């Protein structure tokens, strides 16, 4: 049985904000199925009582001295932006047209 369907892959692509093509969906569905069947091996391990590790370095609440250090100027911070205006990142339309008008 397949671990993942073409419809599920289409859903994942939407969640991932990837406008994939129909052809890509066919390819990815097969490849992700192969990968998922392989990585599902982790389920063989008895680990109910084992704590999870998210990180190998046990550091918590790393703080710095509360002193001002030089940062980027607005021009530097915006230097790579596809579009900028009045020292701000300019984004495409975020509201529906009838709401915006």
């Amino acid at each position: 049985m397949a671990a993942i369907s073409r419809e599920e892959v289409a859903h994942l692509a939407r969640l991932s904000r990837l406008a994939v093509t129909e052809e890509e969906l066919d390819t990815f569905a097969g490849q992700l199925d192969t990968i998922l069947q392989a990585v599902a091996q982790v389920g063989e391990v008895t680990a109910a009582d084992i704590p999870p590790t998210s990180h190998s370095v046990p550091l918590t609440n790393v703080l710095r001295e509360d002193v001002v250090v030089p940062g980027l100027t607005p021009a530097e911070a915006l230097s790579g932006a596809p579009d900028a205006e009045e020292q701000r990142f300019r984004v495409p339309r975020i509201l529906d047209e009838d709401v915006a008008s």
Partner: protein
Amino acid sequence: MTDLTKLTAVEIAGLVAGGETSAVEVTRAHLDRIAAVEGRVHAFLHVDTEGALAAARAVDERRAAGEELGPLAGVPVAVKDVLTTKGVPTTVGSKILEGWRPPYDATIVQRLRAAGTVMLGKTNMDEFAMGSSTEYSAYGPSHNPWDLDRIPGGSGGGSAAAIAAYEAPLAIGSDTGGSIRQPGAVTGTVGAKPTYGGTSRYGLVAFSSSLDTPGPCARTVLDAALLHAAIGGHDPRDSTSIPQPMPDVVAAARLGATGDLTGVKLGIVSEFVGEGAEPGVMAAFHESVDALTKLGAEIVEVSCPHFKYALPAYYLIAPSECSSNLARYDGVRFGLRVGDDGNRSLEEVMSLTREAGFGPEVKRRIMLGTYALSSGYYDAYYGQAQKVRTLITRDFTAAFEQVDALISPTTPFVAFPIGARTADPYQMYLADLFTIPTNLYGGPGISVPCGLSEGLPVGLQVMAPTMADDRMYRVAAALESAVGTFTPPAL
């Protein structure tokens, strides 16, 4: 006259410091070499000729003014395109960052500049460091100097190819699942993954933040150790950076080079010698084990029963972290924006931008990670993988109660032909079978050339406990003193 490109970093720094050559001469020699072989090797995505010569002139001026120079002053270095370089293009091998010139230097790049090294340019890599061959670079693969029809490993294949082809004596890589060590193994060069937290991630474009570790690539163990010492150590700008002094890796490499491993106990990971590796790789490995025994090391077999689950655990953890990290490529703050016609919504533009900007392997991993983190699958996939990570860490801890360091082949197979593993993505993942456990544990690992199989290089991996990077350098340098270095055929 001496061919400056064939020298080690130690030799170059010595000649520059002694006034027998200049940093500018050294830099010109390497730029000439790049011009001569890049058409065939394609190690670089960007060569910064002007920046390199300016940095070299600055070193020569400091020397002329009588300033004391550091141990790597005047030595050229190639930097993987995963580190930000102020004003110098940084693409991470992806179309989504094509043309981006970062407004700041990564900490490692700052330290390279402070050490007086000369950055030649940025090296090719699999897109976002996801891959084992550089074939997933959006700018075409690099070629292995040992056989130009074969891969130089990945993701840091550009850095490894550059040093194997004598385009640079030193390079920086980054290792999330083996991306420094596996390219080192298949190009006959040395690649070291430091302890996680031992080298700064500030300015390292994030792939999987709990695993990503920048580190050194070189043609000799001592050169790698000197580069490691120059870039490593605590960085307040990286909150996962370990606030402790690093072990003296340079002294360890010099000690190892004496060829005496008396009193050192090494463990062969039994799970890694039974299956999975090519016979030629195993033959070279076993010869190296004999060599290490002759140097005085005591060698035993150690079982690490959960290592066989490292690859599946990694391919849940790394894609999960990547699906979150790569959400920043939204077409707003930097990089590509596609389809913004004034009518399309932010979400449509974002989806078109990411579709156009990311290659297939990156898309696969983003979707895989999104799946593993989604409600209903989280416990069975990501949650379970994190528990397996704990068990792998416990395997390492138990092993290091018995031995000083672990050894294995670095990678199961020698450099494969370009195109051989791209049809089935999982076949590509197997290249990192032996390197991944170390990333999940967080300890250091190094690949050192140990022999040839059918004329292609084989690497031996030394894995050490967290913050005991010096141990792996000692063992690697000792093996190098016994088996020597390996030179590819002339290009």
